[in-house]
């Protein structure tokens, strides 16, 4: 017995820790998938998997933006409200004014991007706390959405617009294509561009980044602007899904995005994140909803489970990576 101390499932304890530190999130994802499959075999079906991927595409957009913000030691709490504003802008332009869909979408994206820019500018130029800035702009943005819509839900009956969510290219729904494209672009931006390097450097050690000639203002402003743009895309998909423009949507969406980031190994201390990690975090959140629905567990328990899984995952990460503390 004493011999086996320090060994876990045939692996050296230290190696096991490093393995779990690096791939722990993938292991959790797999365990979850196996567990839900056993409980409810229909989970494994292709149609269900496509269903989950389509659903998570909205949270994925938001989470990628959130990941950038968290990596620079910030947070973007305005994303949920951005969804509502984009939705209301679309409703007014398409149903109210009969605009062309493409033009309406461009304007809607512009609005959310500008709000992202405002967030970033306030945070970087005046050195304000991201939490406070985005908490405040969130109130303004949602207020704007209510003003634009007059508090009324506006149905968008245009089939071309609705097909943004429902159209399929072969067997693959359009939102999944957006998800794949966004994941690829985010991966390139974060891991293969100068900007990505600056994001990590600013997040890990802002003083050292300044001393290396990195512009904090440019980097952080770009981060929140991208987050705004991605929230805009999420808002379009969401509005196409519900076929109605509402000012009360997206409440609490920032929570799921933060959860996906944290599960995916994004460090709140800044400077540490990977796009594949966040993607896995997004799917874990998606599977919690989907799996529990399939098994037939009341939705009240879903948020409790989500909370417990996040704490468990972060705790695991802390224990496995304690060497780095």
């Amino acid at each position: 017995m004493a011999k086996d101390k320090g060994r876990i499932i045939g692996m050296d304890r230290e190696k096991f820790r490093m393995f779990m530190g690096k791939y722990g999130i993938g292991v959790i994802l797999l365990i979850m998938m196996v567990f839900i499959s056993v409980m409810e075999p229909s989970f494994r079906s292709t149609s269900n998997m496509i269903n989950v991927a389509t659903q998570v595409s909205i949270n994925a957009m938001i989470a990628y933006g959130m990941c950038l913000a968290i990596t620079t030691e910030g947070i973007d709490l305005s994303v949920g409200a951005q969804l509502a504003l984009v939705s209301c802008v679309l409703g007014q332009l398409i149903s109210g004014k009969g605009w062309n869909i493409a033009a309406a979408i461009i304007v809607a994206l512009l609005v959310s991007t500008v709000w992202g820019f405002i967030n970033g500018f306030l945070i970087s130029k005046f050195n304000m706390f991201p939490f406070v800035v985005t908490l405040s702009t969130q109130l303004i943005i949602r207020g704007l959405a209510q003003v634009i819509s007059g508090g009324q839900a506006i149905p968008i009956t245009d089939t071309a617009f609705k097909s943004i969510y429902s159209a399929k290219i072969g067997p693959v729904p359009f939102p999944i294509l957006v998800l794949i494209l966004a994941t690829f672009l985010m991966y390139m931006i974060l891991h293969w561009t100068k900007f990505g390097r600056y994001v990590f450097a600013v997040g890990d050690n802002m003083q050292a980044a300044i001393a290396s000639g990195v512009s904090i203002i440019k980097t952080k402003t770009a981060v929140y602007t991208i987050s705004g743009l991605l929230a805009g895309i999420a808002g379009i998909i969401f509005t196409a899904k519900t076929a109605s423009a509402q000012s009360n949507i997206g409440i609490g969406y920032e929570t799921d995005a933060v959860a996906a980031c944290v599960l995916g190994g994004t460090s709140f201390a800044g400077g540490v994140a990977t796009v594949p990690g966040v993607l896995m975090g997004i799917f874990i959140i998606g599977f919690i909803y989907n799996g529990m629905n399939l098994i037939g567990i009341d939705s009240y328990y879903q948020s409790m489970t989500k909370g417990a899984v996040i704490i468990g995952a972060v705790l695991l990460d802390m224990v496995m990576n304690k060497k780095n503390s």
Partner: protein
Amino acid sequence: MEEKARADEAYVLECRGISKAFGGTQALKDVDLFVRPGEVHALLGENGAGKSTLMKCIIGLHQQDEGTIRFEGRPYTARGPVEALDAGISMIHQELNPEPHLTIAESVFLKREDTRGIFLNKKAQNERAEDILKKFNFPHGAKTLMKELTLAQMQMVEIIKAVSCNSRLIIMDEPTSSLDSEETEHLFNTIRELKEKGVAIIYISHRMEEIFRISDHVSVFRDGTYIGERPMEGVTRDELISMMVGRKVENVFPKTACDIGDVVFKVEKLSGKGFEDISFEVRKGEILGISGLVGSGRSETMRAIFGMAPVTGGRIFLEGREIKIRKPIQAIRHGICMVNEDRKNYGLALHRSIRENMTLPTLPMKQRAPILNKKQEEKECLEMGKMLTLKSASIEHDAFSLSGGNQQKVVLAKWLLADPKVLILDEPTRGVDVGAKSEIHSLMCEFAARGMAVIMISSELPEVMGMSDRILVYHEGKINGEVSRDEILSGSADQETILGKAFGGK
């Protein structure tokens, strides 16, 4: 030694044979210190001589590895400043960090508040504080917020706090470093009053004239050892300086003579926060040493040149052309690079890879395509790692995983990749082991030989003297003299010359 036969006298504090090591570095070696009741006992020594470490052992921030401390005749140990305070020892730190939103009364009675049941008794506490403040003729009332006080007044509150805790020994670490002359006088008056009450004071200062004015005895430290104690009466400034210096400069530095070319970099009458009227020039292939005490404005000047602090006056010339630098990126583009003394805060992103750290400043110059050319980047990093004999299994490892010396090499690498004309090194071998230290010294000579102008700030006299072609000595924000390598080699200038200038001598 002479100091060992001291059994008879009564001391308030007796430290005998104190040793303390941090990792492989012996910070204190068999150190003694004897303080008499009601005296001002000055501690003198270069930076890193062990004064602060000894004080931290006394107030319990460190535990000594060997040796005993007796306080008021009884064996004494403290596991932290609170226990030291209970025993009757307080320390006034150089960097005060008061709670800005507390009142004076709350600050003085912090952690020993007047209470009535579970509630604070603010009235009684304020009255008590008022009484003490009156005794010290303090110009503010007990309800004044700490943030409204000047630095000198905050310091006075600390002293009042120490006295109200019935401290019989107060340690003051460079108490006058941020005071003007009037405030200093006020402090000295307070110190005299404390002496009359029988409070002993350990006074750490780099200002020789102050030590001569107010202390009764002085103990000199050097390289973690106790050199000796002298009564202030009869001792001369030169004697103290030679006690502080003591050692001979050993020629262990790999300094090679190389051709010194034209002036590359020149500053004229540069002023800013912490320094004024600084003029100097550096030539191609030259290593310019900057000596002086910590806080004398050396780092401040260089940080301002590098664009990390504002310049309020003066001009900077590079290769004969005047340049303006407001941000580090501008300095980097001009080919002026700086290795900061604080590696952890200004040098490295510790959780990122060696590769990412090395290439960060030069990405805009070397990676022009939208997508990073990681092949080229890797080649650069590997070459640089080889040249600097960086010891790491892979450039993909976190900078965190490296030893101090190898971390410093990564910092050097990131600036060498920028191909600098002027390389500023602020304490380049601080926190670096002996082997890496000598490697860094060799590299510096290599840089100079390649035509770089090297500016090196160092608090280690042997290092400055062994490595520099010329040495500028700072004293209180100004350049107070220059020493050339020839003067050092011929013996007409030595450590005492430099230290004398650093302490304000001519």
